């Protein structure tokens, strides 16, 4: 049994970079599921993370619940509300990552959330605790590059700062984002909130090709992916596919560990298979 207070030694390049390098070497497209931490059940949050990995996740995006998730759609907002109603806070999320690390030293974990919970926790204190827990990167939805000075303690502690890019991002700004990208660049492929679809796959393919050519990190694409077919369509031009709302929706309401794991597996397995098919 490993003491959660002493993290598993993690030598060499950061976990996210190692994972993407391995994917590239194997010629595979990464699968990045997003779940809201503490939903559908705080008791089984860690079990869900392991289930995601067992179902083929290459990296886990863990949403930190926030009361006012301005950039998320109703599915993720409601998941956040459910988690908050059960008392889930940033401290719990870090605790779950630490527990997850006891059995999984390799799968990168990125926390995704909003600035206010981090600010109230204290940036330096959060950074230290996150590294200690085994978090690899942080994506702060409402903290664009221009305001990211406050996140310096996170980077100093070794956490990757995951940036967003969008179809509406102007060319000069896109060049800045590509230059500043680390870990991976998360391309939200429709001009909208999470969970909606707008642009055609061909549009996205052309845009992402340009971004990939310039970015100093791999590019993950979120495109309102709902199933194997939509994931496969993106796999051709992205380093990784992010699946959020559809998964959160599928998990909602499950209460038992077995049921949660079964739903995660049944949802992700066909997507994993489609991504790996020649």
């Amino acid at each position: 049994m490993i003491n959660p207070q002493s993290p598993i030694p993690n030598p060499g390049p950061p976990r996210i970079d190692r994972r993407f390098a391995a994917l590239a070497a194997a010629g595979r497209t990464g699968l990045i599921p997003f779940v809201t931490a503490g939903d559908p059940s705080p008791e089984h949050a860690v079990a869900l993370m392991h289930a995601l990995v067992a179902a083929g996740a290459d990296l886990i995006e863990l949403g930190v619940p926030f009361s006012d998730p301005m950039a998320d759609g109703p599915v993720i907002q409601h998941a956040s509300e459910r988690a908050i109603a059960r008392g889930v806070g940033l401290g719990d999320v870090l605790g779950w990552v630490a527990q997850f690390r006891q059995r999984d030293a390799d799968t990168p974990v990125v926390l995704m959330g909003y600035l206010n919970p981090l600010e109230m926790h204290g940036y330096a204190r959060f950074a230290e605790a996150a590294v200690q827990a085994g978090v690899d990167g942080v994506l702060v939805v409402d903290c664009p590059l221009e305001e990211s000075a406050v996140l310096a303690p996170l980077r100093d502690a070794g956490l990757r700062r995951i940036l967003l890019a969008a179809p509406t991002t102007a060319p000069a700004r896109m060049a800045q984002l590509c230059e500043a990208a680390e870990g991976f660049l998360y391309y939200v492929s429709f001009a909208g909130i999470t969970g909606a679809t707008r642009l055609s796959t061909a549009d996205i393919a052309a845009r992402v090709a340009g971004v990939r050519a310039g970015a100093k990190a791999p590019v993950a694409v979120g495109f309102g992916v709902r199933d194997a077919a939509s994931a496969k369509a993106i796999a051709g031009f992205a380093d990784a596919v992010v699946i959020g709302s559809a998964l959160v929706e599928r998990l909602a309401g499950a209460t038992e560990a077995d049921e949660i794991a079964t739903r995660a597996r049944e949802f992700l397995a066909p997507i994993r298979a489609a991504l790996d098919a020649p």
Partner: protein
Amino acid sequence: MSSIQDFHRWPDEHGRFGAYGGSYVAETLMAPLAELTEAYRRLSQDPAFLAELDRDLKHYVGRPSPVYHAERLSQHVGGARILLKREDLNHTGAHKINNTVGQALVARHMGKRRVIAETGAGQHGVASATVAARFGMQCVVYMGAVDIERQKINVYRMKLLGAEVVPVTSGSKTLKDALNEAMRDWVTNVADTFYIIGTVAGPHPYPQMVRDFNAIVGREAREQMLAQYGRLPDAITACVGGGSNAIGLFHAFLNDAGVRIVGAEAAGEGIATGHHAASLAAGRPGVLHGNRTYVLCDDNGQITETHSVSAGLDYPGVGPEHAFLKDAGRAEYVGITDDEALEAFHLLARTEGILAALESSHAVAQAIKLAREYPKDALVLCNLSGRGDKDVHTIAAREGVQV
């Protein structure tokens, strides 16, 4: 003394008022905000645009609004003279129209055919629906389900004006949730849609733009004071929810060091009870709705539910310029309880024949407190930001009266 600095130089080029403001939004909003910032920068220096705005403010809104000496109220209180800046006499009955006329003009210049808005008390929704009707634009107003229930008259007014009112059932079902939902609509439909934010919050350039459009209130009042009384007031006060009517009044006076500035926040059932909306008096610096400002939140950073008898003040954040003015010591922010506001409402009604909005009644209550602190020849200027017709059902219900 804080007067050494020029308070009119804010925000800086990043949209910051000292440590506050900025653009804390998702990447998808950066481009539309940049487009808006550039359009507004250009228009705000365009004499033709400004002339168009002046015409609308004069002939459509009905400006200037008077500064009225509330003589019987002042006598009743027994202190300084209380003067009311009568924004309640504007078209649609509140200061909100100053801003919506301005933003609708910006929208038209940007070629947007659809406008959206969030609303709490419904005043901003009505003001948005009004200008949308006038300019022939489609209008969608997001409103918390709780607010829809307590502001039925304004909901119906918006519908009469041709707007679609969308109930918001997430979170606390009030103003902050309506703002989240409107922001989502904007992100999704940004190509043809202009988001008319109703207060001096949100990401840059909104706090600046909304302030600029409301600053006519203070500019007029300052001139009227000099013309009618030959001097500036000793103290000025306004209610603060998001803070648009307050910054509208305060801005022209910020560099007048001799003018005391006091904002009245909603203390609800009392700040000690936790049931209030006093972000500046009882909150802490944080990030909400695209800007850094004072917010009401718990130790996990979750925004807390607020309470006020007035829907328009029921907001857990506040405009970043107010946060800056508080820290700079240029303005004081104090709490007025529901009961104090209601008492002021009744007193103003019976001494002056004016039904003030519940929001504005907080400012009246604060003006009464200030008047008691000053001698009889002193001047206390209060922004009467809106009329109270929309609130008569709320007041009747609260006082157990069947209407």
